[in-house]
C-alpha cells in the first residue's frame, strides 16, 4: 500500500528526509548498529539547524536534559523506561527515539492485561511444528527477539499493564542479553545496538507494579507536564486547530484568552499553586493533562458552534471543565469549590466564568 494513503505514518517514514539529512551530516562516533550518533539523535528529537542549513523540526517540546539523559541511557546499553502521567508524549518520544536510533519504530509489544509470554519471547507455528518438528522455521519470533537478532531498538508500550509473571521474562533478557530456546537447545544472543524502550503510566502504578528487580534494570526518565504556561498554550492551540479541522467544526478558531484561562486553571490545580505563586491549592485526583485541556476546548468549540454564537465563551467551556476536574464526586467537588470560591471569585475579570460554573452546580 502506498504510504501516503496510510492514516498515520511511522515516524521513520514521515520524517525520512530529516533522518537522511542528519545521517549525511553526522560524522560523530556512533555506537554499534546505531543509525545516528547520540548527538544527532538529540538534535532529531529537539530540532535544530544542521551545518548545511537544513532545518530539523522539533518532535518534543520540553527539557533538553531529559532527552539527553534518555539518549545517554540507550547509548550505555541500559534499557530506558519512560514514565509519566497520561498525555505527556511518552509513546511519541519512544517512537521517535527508536526511529532515530534504529531507523525502525515498528518492533513493538503492546502491553495489555492479556499479553502472554509468547508475545514477549517466541511462539510456534503449529502446522510447521507438526510437519517438521521443532525447528527455527516453526518458531514465531516476537518483536523483542527480532530486535535482538538485528541489533535494533524494541519498544514495549504500557509495561505496567503486562502481568507480573510475563514482566519477569524481561529480567534475564535485559541483564544477560540472551534469550534461550530450550526446545531447540539453542539461544539467541543480542547483537550490539539492541535495546529496549518501555513506557509506563505512573497513575496506573497499582495495576502491575514493577518488581524491584525489573526496576533496577531500567533507567527511568519521568516526562513531566509542560513546564511553562506559554508552552502549554502553544501545544493546546496547535492541537485544537488540527483537530478542529479534522472534525470540520464550523466555530471560529478558539479565542486565545479562553484557551489561556483553561490552561491556567489546569496548571494551577495540577501544581497546587496559583500562577502568581501566592495561594496554595489542593489538587484533584485526576491527571489534568494537556490532552484533557485540548478536549475541554474542543467540546467547548463544538458547543459554541452548534448551540451558541460560534464564539467560545465561558459558559461553553464550563460544563466540560467541571467534567475534567471532578473525577471523584466527593473529594474533587470540594477541591473544585474551594478553587472556585477562593481563587476564581477573587479575579475580577473571571466573573463570567465564576457565574457560569456556579450555574452548573
Amino acid at each position, binding site marked *: 500500500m502506498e504510504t501516503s494513503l496510510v492514516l498515520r505514518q511511522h515516524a521513520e517514514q514521515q520524517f525520512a528526509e530529516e533522518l537522511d539529512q542528519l545521517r549525511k551530516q553526522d560524522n560523530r562516533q556512533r555506537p554499534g548498529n546505531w543509525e545516528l550518533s547520540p548527538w544527532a539523535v538529540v538534535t532529531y528529537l529537539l530540532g535544530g539547524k544542521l551545518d548545511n542549513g537544513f532545518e530539523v523540526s522539533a518532535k518534543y517540546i520540553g527539557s533538553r536534559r531529559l532527552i*539527553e*539523559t534518555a539518549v545517554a541511557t540507550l547509548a550505555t546499553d541500559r534499557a530506558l523506561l519512560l514514565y509519566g502521567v497520561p498525555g505527556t508524549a511518552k509513546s511519541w518520544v519512544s517512537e521517535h527515539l527508536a526511529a532515530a536510533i534504529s531507523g525502525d519504530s515498528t518492533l513493538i509489544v503492546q502491553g495489555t492485561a492479556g499479553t502472554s509470554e509468547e508475545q514477549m519471547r517466541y511462539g510456534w507455528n503449529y502446522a510447521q511444528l507438526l510437519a517438521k518438528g521443532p525447528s527455527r522455521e516453526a518458531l514465531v519470533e516476537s518483536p523483542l527477539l527480532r530486535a535482538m537478532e538485528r541489533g535494533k531498538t524494541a519498544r514495549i508500550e504500557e509495561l505496567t499493564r503486562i502481568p507480573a509473571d510475563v514482566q519477569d521474562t524481561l529480567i534475564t533478557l535485559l541483564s544477560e542479553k540472551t534469550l534461550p530456546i530450550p526446545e531447540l537447545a539453542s539461544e539467541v544472543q543480542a547483537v550490539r545496538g539492541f535495546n529496549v524502550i518501555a513506557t509506563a503510566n505512573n497513575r496506573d502504578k497499582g495495576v502491575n507494579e514493577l518488581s524491584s528487580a525489573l526496576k*533496577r534494570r531500567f*533507567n527511568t526518565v519521568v516526562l513531566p507536564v509542560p513546564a511553562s504556561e506559554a508552552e502549554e498554550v502553544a501545544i493546546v492551540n496547535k492541537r485544537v486547530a488540527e483537530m478542529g479541522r479534522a472534525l470540520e467544526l464550523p466555530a471560529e478558531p478558539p479565542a486565545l484568552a479562553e484557551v489561556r484561562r483553561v490552561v491556567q486553571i489546569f496548571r494551577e490545580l495540577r501544581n497546587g499553586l496559583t500562577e502568581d505563586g501566592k495561594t*496554595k491549592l489542593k489538587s484533584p485526583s485526576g491527571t489534568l493533562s494537556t490532552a484533557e485541556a485540548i478536549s475541554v476546548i474542543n467540546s467547548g468549540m463544538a458547543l459554541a458552534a452548534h448551540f451558541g454564537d460560534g464564539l467560545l465563551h465561558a459558559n461553553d467551556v464550563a460544563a466540560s471543565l467541571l467534567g475534567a476536574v471532578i473525577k471523584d464526586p466527593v473529594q474533587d467537588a470540594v477541591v473544585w*469549590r*474551594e478553587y472556585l470560591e*477562593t481563587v476564581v471569585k477573587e479575579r475580577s475579570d473571571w466573573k463570567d466564568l465564576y457565574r457560569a460554573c456556579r450555574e452548573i452546580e
Partner: protein
Amino acid sequence: MSDAIHLFGIRHHGPGCARSLLQALQALQPDCLLIEGPADAEAILPFVLHEELQPPVALLLHAEDDPRQASFYPFAEFSPEWQALRFARERGIETRFIDLPAAHQFALEQAWREEDAAAAPEAAAATPESDAGLSGDPLGWLGQAAGYADGEAWWNHMVEERCDGQQLFAAIAEAMQALREQAPAERSPRRARREALREAHMRKCLRQALKDGYQRIAVVCGAWHVPALASLPAAKVDNELLKGLPKTRVAATWAPWTYRNLCSASGYGAGVDAPAWYAHLWRNPEPGQRAVTWLARAAGLFRAEGLDCSSAQIIEATRLAEGLAALRERPAPGLEELCEALQTTVCMGDAAPMRLIRDRLIVGDRLGTVPADVPAVPLQRDLEQQQKSLRLKPQAAQKTLDLDLREPGGLARSHLLHRLNLLGIRWGEQTRGVVSSKGTFHEVWSLQWQPELAVAVIEASQWGSTVESAATARAVARARSSESLAELSELVDDVLLANLPQAVAPVTRALEDLASLATDVTQLLDAVPALTRIARYGNVRQTDTGMVRHVLDGLITRAAIGLSAACAALHEDAASAMRERIRAADAAIRLLDDPARSQDWQQALGRIAAFGASHGLICGQAARLLFDADAEDLDACAVRMNLALSRSVEPAAAAAWLEGFLDQSALILMHDPRLWSMVDGWLAALSDDHFERIVALLRRTFSTFSAAERRELGERARRPAAATVAAPAATRWDPQRAALPLPLLARLLGLSNDGAFS
C-alpha cells in the same frame, strides 16, 4: 606596572581557584600577601590559625553604635582567600587587607540613606539598591557568551572542576579585561562611585606595599578587579578620590557560619549554589575518583534514610553520568550529570529523593565554630544596648515583672522579651495567670538570667545582628518548616506579640499555605478561634492584623465548604467533639462580625442542620446556632423540630437532636409555646420501652439547665399546653443614660477615642 606585584583574580569560594592559587603561591613564595577584604578587619586576622576557628566562618564587621549596619565576609575551607590567609599566616608572611575600610563603606551608606530619606521618605524604603550591574555577576555574562544557562555552571565546568591551574590566572585576567572593556557603564551612580573608591583604595595599598620594599607581592582579589589593579597610575588621582571620606567606628569579629548561609549573597555579593559539592571538589582533587566517591556518599545517604540503593545502581549511575558528560562534550561528569544520573538510575526518575541529596550533599549542613575569645557578636551588643535603654538588668536572681502594655516602655519591654523567646533565649517566662491573658493590658513575666543564655545569644547570632532582625529571621525559618496549623497559628500570635512586622507576612503566608492544603476540617475549625482573637484584639497592641484577617477569611471559607463532609457519619464521641468545635468556631465567627463570612458559615450550618445530614447532636446544634444568629426564624425552627421529633424517627436520634438544639438552656422552650408543646407531645407519645432507653440521655440534657429553668419547666408541664406566659414588657432605653459610663470604659480598656468601639 612593577614586576614585584603578582595579581591573582579569583572567584570567591571557588575550590578550583583555591587549588590553583595555592600552587601559584608555592611557586612564587611571596613576601607579602594582599587580600581583598576590609582593611579595618586586620586586627582579628591572628585568629585564622586558632584551631577552634573552623570554617565556615564569617568575618563580621559592624558599626559600633548601630549593629544593624553589618556586613559578613564568609569563608569556607575551599575559599581561595581562606587558603591564602592560612598559607601566609603559617609562614609568617606579612598579610594585609586592601579593600576600602568598612568604616568608610558604612558611613557612605548611612549618608546615602539619609539623603534618600530626606528626598523622598516613602520611596527610600521601597527601592533597595539592585545588583543588576555587570560587576555584580561578571561570570554570568561570560557564561552566557559561552552558551551556558548560567555563569555558575560555566565557571564550574571551566575552572572549578578542572585541575590544571598554571595558566588559569592569566586567562582570568584576560577574560575580565575583555569583559570590562565591553561592559556598559554602571547604572547606579552610587555603585559606580563605591566601585571606584574600592579600587582606588586597593591601588593605594599596592603602592604602599611597594614602598615598604616587598619584592614578591601576591594580590588576591575578585576576578573583576584584576584589570583595575593591573596598572598603577599616578597616586595623586586615587588619593584625591579617597580624601575626606566620612567615617564611622567599626568593630570586627568572627562569627560561625553555615553552608546554607553561603548559598545566599552576602558581604561579597557572591553566593555559591553548592557549598558541599565545592567542599567535595576541594577534598578530592583527582577528577577520575571525584564522581565515584560522590556517588558512593550519595548511596550511603540514601541507605541511611531507608531508601534502596544497590552498588549495581551506583555503577549504572557512574556509567550514565559519564555517558551524559560525553554527550555534552565535557571531560568529566559535573554536578548536573551526577544528579541526573542518580535521579534516573536510583530514584526511578522521581525528583523527591533528590531533595535529600540537595540538602546534604550539595548545600550541606556544616556549621563553623569560633573560639570563645573572639570579640562580642553584634547581637550581644544590641541586646546589651536594649537592656540598658529599657532598664532591664540581667540578674541571676528570679524577678517578677508586671508590664503595662499601654505605656510605651512596658510595650517595648514586652516586645524584647517575646523576641528573645522566639530566638530561644529564655530569659523571661510569661506567667499566664488571672490578670494576664491575651487581649488584656498586663503581662506578668518572671525573669532570670542564666549563664548559658550567653551561649544561646551566640548561637542566635547566626540569625542576624540585631534582636529584631534575628527574631524575624528565626520566626520565618520556623514558619517554613512547620507542618501543623496549631503551631503556626501560635507562631503568628508570637510574632505579633513580639512586634516583628517583617515576619508577619511570611509567617501568615506559611499559615495560609498550610491551611489551603489541610484536608482535615477539624484542624481548620481549631485554628479559627485563635486567629479570630488575633484579628479582633491584635489592634490593641498596635500591630497590623490585616494579613491575619486575609488568612482567616480563607480559613473560614474552606471550613465552611468542607463542613458537611466532615460532619457526615460521626459516632457519638466524635459528634460531641465536633459539636464543641462548631460552637467555638461559630462564636469566633460571630465575634468577627463580617457579613460575607457569616453568610458562608451559615450556609454551611444550614447544610448540616438538615435532619439526617449528620449526627442528631450536630444537626440540633446547627439549627440552634442558625436560630440564635437570626438566620432562621421560629417558624423554620418549628419545622426542623417537627421533623426531628416526628414519630418515625428513632427516639435516640431525636433525643440527641434535642440535646444539641437546646444547647444547655431551656429558655427557648419557655419562650415559644409551639416548641414547648412539640417537645411535650413527643415525650408523651413515647412508648415505655423507648422512654426507658432515652431517659438517661434526656436527664443529661435537662441536667445542664439551671435550677430555675428546670423548676419553671416542671411547672409548665403541669399546666395545660395551651397556656402561655405573658410576653415581658418592652424595655425602654434611655440612650443618654447609657452613654454615661462609656468614657470610663474607654479609659479602662485603654482606647484613646470612642471611635475604637464597635
